[in-house]
């Protein structure tokens, strides 16, 4: 009995509840005969889709700025990169190459990294001035950036027919199809079917590669310095480490991962979503890593893998199950709100002064 208690404690009560809920949903899905393999295939696809965005939390939390609610800043960088790639494809730059889809996604990633890098650096400088209130400041800085870019999407001089509204020609569309660009490039790479379950091998490989690179970074000299700066700034100072520099580094990395993450997300989704789409993304992503066992001061790659899988798993399986019970409605969205905000509240109430 005691050992069970201890196991539950070390795993964290909310995770036990969420895991149980996931298993329960799977059971219900089996009961209603909803085709478990197809559902699982869906879960895996969404796991890869959201994975890199959630991974963006790791350098942020490890460098001491806490969960990066402002990851939407990186997402905007990624969207800019994708738009530039679409524009260049439209101008015919890639057609001479052997594989225009792959080139276009690489170009999108390069520009995403450049923009997210610049944004992240500036954002990191800001966060150094607001130590102790990073979470609420980053949330509103993220919101402001999304609102600012709502205006920019109307004003930026993109001309590609895929991107802008067809008739009025004023500004960019709300959703831009990637079918002619890099939609599905990762997903279709080495993809295979296992019965009803389709596995997007390429997407998972990209996700795991990113995880591996981040892990490798945390094992390097500079990565260890960054972790030290985050977990104990005074220790870091005593070791001659410039804590502020490390925080900027962590923020920049997190923002860049956000940019890469949205490109991977969009190619799997098939569409680029502009305007208010990234607004609440930060909350979903923060909640995912917390579900995986991270806290506001501590996060590991494992938390990303587990958290994203569980969180997306619940949302994916819940829709068909709920539709069996209640005929209609947008239960998935409501479930997302309750779970993500519930887990964040739980983490905040546990952290107490630890994050101040």
């Amino acid at each position, binding site marked *: 009995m005691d050992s069970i208690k201890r196991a539950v404690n070390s795993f964290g009560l909310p995770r036990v509840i969420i895991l149980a809920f996931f298993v329960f949903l799977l059971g219900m899905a089996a009961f209603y005969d909803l085709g478990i393999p197809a559902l699982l295939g869906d879960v895996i696809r969404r796991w890869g889709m959201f994975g890199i965005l959630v991974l963006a939390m790791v350098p942020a939390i490890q460098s001491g700025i806490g969960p990066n609610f402002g990851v939407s800043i990186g997402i905007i960088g990624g969207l800019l990169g994708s738009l530039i790639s679409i524009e260049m494809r439209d101008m015919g730059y890639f057609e001479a190459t052997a594989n225009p889809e792959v080139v276009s996604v690489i170009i999108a990633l390069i520009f995403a990294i450049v923009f997210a890098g610049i944004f992240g650096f500036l954002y990191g400088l800001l966060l150094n001035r*607001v130590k102790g*209130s990073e979470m609420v*400041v980053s949330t*509103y800085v993220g919101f402001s950036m999304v*609102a600012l870019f709502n205006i920019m999407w109307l*004003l930026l001089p993109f001309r590609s027919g895929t991107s802008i509204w067809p008739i009025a020609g004023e500004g960019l569309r709300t959703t831009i199809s990637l079918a002619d660009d890099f939609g599905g490039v990762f997903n279709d790479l080495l993809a295979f079917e296992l019965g009803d379950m389709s596995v997007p091998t390429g997407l998972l490989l990209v996700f795991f590669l990113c995880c591996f690179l981040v892990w490798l970074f945390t094992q390097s000299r500079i990565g260890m310095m960054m972790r030290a700066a985050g977990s104990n700034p005074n220790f870091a100072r005593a070791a001659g480490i410039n804590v502020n520099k490390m925080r900027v580094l962590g923020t920049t990395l997190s923002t860049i991962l956000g940019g890469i993450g949205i490109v991977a997300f969009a190619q799997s989704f098939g569409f680029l979503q502009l305007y208010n789409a990234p607004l609440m993304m930060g909350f979903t992503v923060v909640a995912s890593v917390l579900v995986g066992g991270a806290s506001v001061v501590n996060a590991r790659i494992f938390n990303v893998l587990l958290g994203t899988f569980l969180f997306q798993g619940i949302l994916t399986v819940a829709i068909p199950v709920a539709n069996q019970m209640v*005929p209609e409605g947008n239960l998935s969205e*409501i479930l997302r709100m309750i779970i993500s905000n519930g887990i964040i509240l739980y983490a905040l109430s546990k952290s*107490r002064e630890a994050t101040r």
Partner: protein
Amino acid sequence: MSILNKVGKYLAKNNVTVLFVILCLLAYHYSTFTLPTLFEELFIRIGRNTFLVLSLLIPIIAGLGLNFGIVIGAIAAQIAIFVVVLFGGSGFTGILWAVAICTPLAVFFGYLVGSLFNKMKGTEMIGGLVAGFFSDGIYQFIFLFMLGGVIVVNAPDLMIATGVGVRNIINLDGNLRQAIDNMPMINIIDAAFYAITAICAILIIFRLAKKRDLQIKKLLKAFLPVAILWAASWIPAVGAFMSAPRLLLLYAIEFGVAGAVIYQLWKIFASKVLDKNPELPKMRLVYMGVAGGVYAITFIPAMYEALSMVNLPVLTYLIIAALYMFIPWFMNTKLGQDMRTVGQDRAVATSSGINVNKVRIIAMIMSTVLASYGQIISLQNIGTVATYGSHIAVGLYSIAALLVGGASVQRATTKQAVLGIVLFHTMFILSANAGAQLLGNAQIGEFFRVFAAYGVIAVALAMHAWSRRKGGQTLGLPAATVVVPAKPPESGSK
């Protein structure tokens, strides 16, 4: 020179406010709005939102920061309105029912949020924001699935065609719509007269019973003005004028000016003649001069035109005025002072015997209850409830408005709230039109005002965090300094 310095300092200190004044002037310049149309729209919005913004003040003073959780109060109000509409409540009685239902709900919610905040001291603001989203999720779950799905609700007008879930829009036409706004002045005066008569009677009986001083003079001072107004309402012409529910802004100003002048004259008379005070009270003359100045403004043709376009809903504005006066009064009570102490320094408060957690919970309950009333006022004015939308932006726009007025995370006054509402909503009204005129795209203006709201909050939060870091280093007053052992007992392990 020194005046210039002072002005410069003032401008630098209130940079957000100054920026908004400039923005408003620019937007007005480029928009096609005229002063009367702007005023008309603006005063509707002031009536709608001021109460909500004022509900933010108490948590700020108690050190809880900007209460992003007022969304939860708004949710309580919407639940109450749904119930009232469901059971066919209407008119002012319906409003009273809504208040009766939402008060215990809001108290309960406020208690929960307050207890939660006590577990996350220092991160209340992000906690409030997340708690708002979380409650929104629960609220949507109940309204979209439980109602009709689990709880049988037999009201086809309110429910989605399938019978499960509440419709997107609850129409308040014919029940609660403008039930507060449309209260005729004469009824208000009647009610006030009965109320003051009853209170005076109770006080006299109470004081007689306890053999205390009757303080008749004080009672008369409160009773007489109301009684005179009430008596005047019996004059047919006055009665007819008063049976309207709205008051022209122009008249409101004229009455205000006249009232001020009469009051000051009475004071001068009282001090010179009754108390035989030889000195002429100069400040009284200055006040009268100001009143005269305000009156003079109404003679500017553009102003005159604008002021005579605007009709104020009298009861709504009176309720707002009551809250406006309540907050400073409350801050001067023992509980209010305790809140200020807690807001300034929790360690000192604890060591002076103040129950910090309890005071913080009371502050949250008050804020949540006030926010729920504010939402009722706002929704009865609009006349429709967007079941899944009305509450969402409440926190964002109220907080942005307060900050625009020059408030910060730690300091906020009623004046700043009112100034902020005027500026923020002027910008809000004008931005779409100005955007269309200036850039040929109305959407830019709409996006801009959302950006402005978020941006103002981001800047205020960042500046607060920044100054707190700097301040913490220079003041040198440690936050928690209860006697602690010089050598912390180290247990050896862990």
